[in-house]
């Protein structure tokens, strides 16, 4: 019954038979997955199941070799596009480990990112007051201190600050598909709640989320519509939110064996 209601919706992200290797090691093995518009899909799986690889391959990180398959974002093929073009198409990756970039001010970076998305649409660059206002509003909602924004990008940010800054970027860039890679890792419960609220505030019928996590904990705060279990580079089970609870009780052992 669930499959039928989903089929009626627009498919926002569609991954078909995707196989990916890095340094000749097969990581994603014929993986298929669809995420509908407005849907929050959780991907859970044991360590080494290929979750982060999936996130990176969607965003276009070099060094991964796509052997076969395709990825469509609202019908448009993504895999041939440069990472920046994928971002312009509306894909956003919230990194598990956001990199520290000394010498690049966080604000300079945000402005460059926002303008990079405006220019191809033929829009003029944001004026400084307009830009400042947008950032201030988004930062307030995420309890991000203005002082933090004056620092170099992610440099000296705590784990929680880095994750909040990822969500701030997501809020400003307004992507159609957001991939959150272990956004809960390294967060205490208060930071987790702030980040989850930030994500929930962006939920809309036009946006989709792929929430990658190892633990059920994050899903208490970001309620998924569907839960997929990933093991050995493919989706081995899909179900409703109750699947996450079952995993919490029984662990991943069953699925790891099933995929073997």
């Amino acid at each position, binding site marked *: 019954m669930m499959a039928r209601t989903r089929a009626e919706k627009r498919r926002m992200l569609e991954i078909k038979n995707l196989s990916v290797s890095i340094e000749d090691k097969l990581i994603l093995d014929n993986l298929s997955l669809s995420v509908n518009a407005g849907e929050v899909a959780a991907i859970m799986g044991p360590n080494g199941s290929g979750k982060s690889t999936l996130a990176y391959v969607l*965003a276009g*990180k070099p*060094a991964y070799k796509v052997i076969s398959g395709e990825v469509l974002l609202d019908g448009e093929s993504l895999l041939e596009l440069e990472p*920046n073009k994928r971002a312009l198409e509306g894909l956003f990756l919230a990194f598990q480990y956001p990199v520290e970039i000394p010498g690049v001010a966080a604000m300079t970076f945000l402005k460059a990112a926002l303008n990079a998305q405006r220019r191809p649409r033929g829009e003029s660059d944001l004026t400084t007051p307009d830009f400042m206002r947008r950032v201030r509003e988004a930062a307030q909602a995420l309890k991000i201190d203005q002082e933090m924004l004056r620092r170099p990008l992610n440099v000296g940010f705590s784990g929680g600050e880095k994750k909040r800054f990822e969500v701030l970027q997501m809020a400003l860039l307004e992507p159609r598909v957001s991939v959150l890679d272990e956004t809960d890792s390294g967060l205490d419960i208060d930071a987790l709640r702030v980040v989850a609220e930030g994500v929930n505030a962006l939920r809309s019928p036009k946006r989709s989320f792929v929430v990658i996590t190892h633990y059920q904990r994050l899903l208490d705060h970001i309620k998924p519509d569907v839960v997929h279990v990933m093991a050995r580079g493919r989706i081995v089970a899909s179900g409703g939110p109750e699947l996450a609870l079952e995993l919490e009780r029984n662990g991943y052992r069953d699925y790891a064996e099933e995929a073997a």
Partner: protein
Amino acid sequence: MAIAITLRRLRNSPMTAHVVNRSVAETTLARQFAEQERRERSPARAAAFARFAAAGLPTRRVETWHYTDLRAWMADAAPFLPAPTRADVEVARSRLARRERFAAGPQLVLLGGRFIAELSDPLPIGVSIAEGVAAHAADDPLAALNEALSPCGYTISVMREANIAEPITLLHLGDDASSCSIYSRTAIDFDVEARASFVEIFEGAHAGVQRHSATILTLAEGAGAKHVAVVGDEPGLHIETQICELANGAELTAFGLISGGDLTRRQIFVRMLGEEAKASLSGLALIDGARRADTTLQVVHAAPAGTSREFYRTIVDDDAIGVFQGKIIVEKAAQKTDGAMKSQAILLSPRAQMNAKPELEIFADDVVCGHGATVASLDPEHVFYLQSRGIPDDDARGMLLEAFGGEAIDRVEDKLLVDALRARLTAWLGTRKAKT
């Protein structure tokens, strides 16, 4: 940062006498010196030339010139640029009228190494300029050559306790007419507790110019000096010697930007003679094409409780070759020395080269000293992160290079000068982008 400490014996004679046959350039230099002596005898200059002649033009065998074989590189010495005529001064005047200044503040103009009062601004109260520079025996053949062949030279004095707010610019204008050698020599004396900033800008030289410049900074007790050198024109050869001496509690901040020239060598000799002196030396070299840029430092801690920081960055593109050699020497008396040296380079092409050789020679037993050198490409993780936010690859790389260079410039710690230097960096990155 990698930390390494080496103990070595001081060599007795660092200048290696190796000259068997004079090269063409060495013969020309000897003739030029002899002609100068015929016009105007000077025992001090003769002594300096004798020091040069004993060593000759340096080759790879001279340790401090190991990566820059000047003897092989210098086919001949170009003729001296004659003293400027009235017409030269007028040409320079109209050039200055069209030129945008690098920084606010008074500007002194040197034409072919000679101070031209009528093209220069009045100096602020507490600062004066006079002809002549006291002899200074730096242990380097090119420093000796500069002393032997420079026109009279000038000494700028900053009075006791003077605190000069705006930077004073020394504009070295080159010559775009012919092949020529330009020698200049400037001493800047900071009296007790005097504070001032100086900017030396080298401009207007083309590939036929061989430039030999020397600046001697002497800081008396408690003086505070800032010095920024900007090499942005296109001389065939730019050899710049800086000799710095710091008395008790003196503080020196010196920065050098290289963004042009076929062969550029900045050599900086710092002696921390007084207790609790502080030196912050930094620089940024931006090189592409077939350029070579060599920055060589020697910092001697001769008194206790001195602090020195050396921070140099290089961006190397195309077939260019960068060199960084830095040596911190901590003499036996210099207990409680705190020294840290860092050289970092980014290579943008598979053919680009960087030679980095940081060294420590420590004879005191209670010191904290470290050095590190890195040579790398732009970090692909950084590029990917920026790209994943929609920033195109080229722009992402530009941002990262601007950040890399900007961090060296920030060491100047003066907003006005930092902004002016950053504008140069942005312009250099812009021409690079236009090229590709």
